[in-house]
């Protein structure tokens, strides 16, 4: 595979609490396959898992969102480690760029201002919001489901 063609996105957010392991995870591969899993113990024990093939236009939009976020230039070196509050993972492969970030949950933009890398964390925070917005729009329109 040509290095320029490589594309992969995966996001995970979760925590393990008194209700067990609650998480949201999605992954997009370069052939268009979007895989989504949402597990919460609020209301039900079941994990919701869905898969759909997205068209090239959707991947191109994802790539545009990622490129304009500047997250590919960030570094999670100075970001807080995952803890009992939760864990986030973001992995992106785009052409010859590759990032793999692991950090704790970020409740709001205020949380990023106290960190050692407020700008990088804020970019990460907004990118995650934008990625979720696209994935949730896909889930809502294609499957008529909304995340819990």
């Amino acid at each position, binding site marked *: 595979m040509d290095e320029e063609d490589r594309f992969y996105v995966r996001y995970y957010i979760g925590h393990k609490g008194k209700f067990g392991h609650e998480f949201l995870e999605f992954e997009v591969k370069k052939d*268009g396959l979007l895989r989504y899993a949402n597990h919460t113990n609020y209301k039900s024990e079941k994990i919701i898992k869905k898969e759909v093939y997205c068209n090239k236009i*959707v991947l191109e939009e994802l790539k545009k969102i990622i490129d304009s976020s500047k997250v590919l230039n960030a570094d999670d070196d100075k970001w807080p480690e995952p803890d009992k509050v939760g864990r986030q993972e973001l992995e992106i492969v785009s052409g010859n760029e590759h990032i793999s970030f692991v950090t704790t949950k970020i409740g709001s933009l205020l949380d990023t201002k106290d960190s050692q890398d407020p700008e990088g964390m804020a970019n990460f925070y*907004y990118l995650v919001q*934008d990625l979720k917005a696209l994935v949730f*729009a896909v889930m809502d*329109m294609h499957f*008529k489901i909304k995340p819990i």
Partner: protein
Amino acid sequence: GMQKRRDGEGEEEPAKSVEGWILFVAGVHEEATEEELLSLFDEYGEVKNINLPLDRCTCYVKGYALIEYADLESAKQAMRAVDGNELNDQILRVSWAFLKGPIRDR
């Protein structure tokens, strides 16, 4: 790269969604409204749903939308008619959002 008409993105077949057929629209200008998109797209058939996500930082429109049609023919006609059109000085690209199988390498 060369700008191509993305009519149906070639040979890949669209996948039907739970209640209809969904188009993905890119190149939507940042002040676009659902009403504006509706009036552009409902000419081709009944639009059941529009999803127009905002940029979480700026609160302007992020730049894409999903449009759901009740029937396949309306969606096809809308895609052919609107793809490549201008809306507020930006070229819209319209394709199927979902496919029956993986994107084929060209």
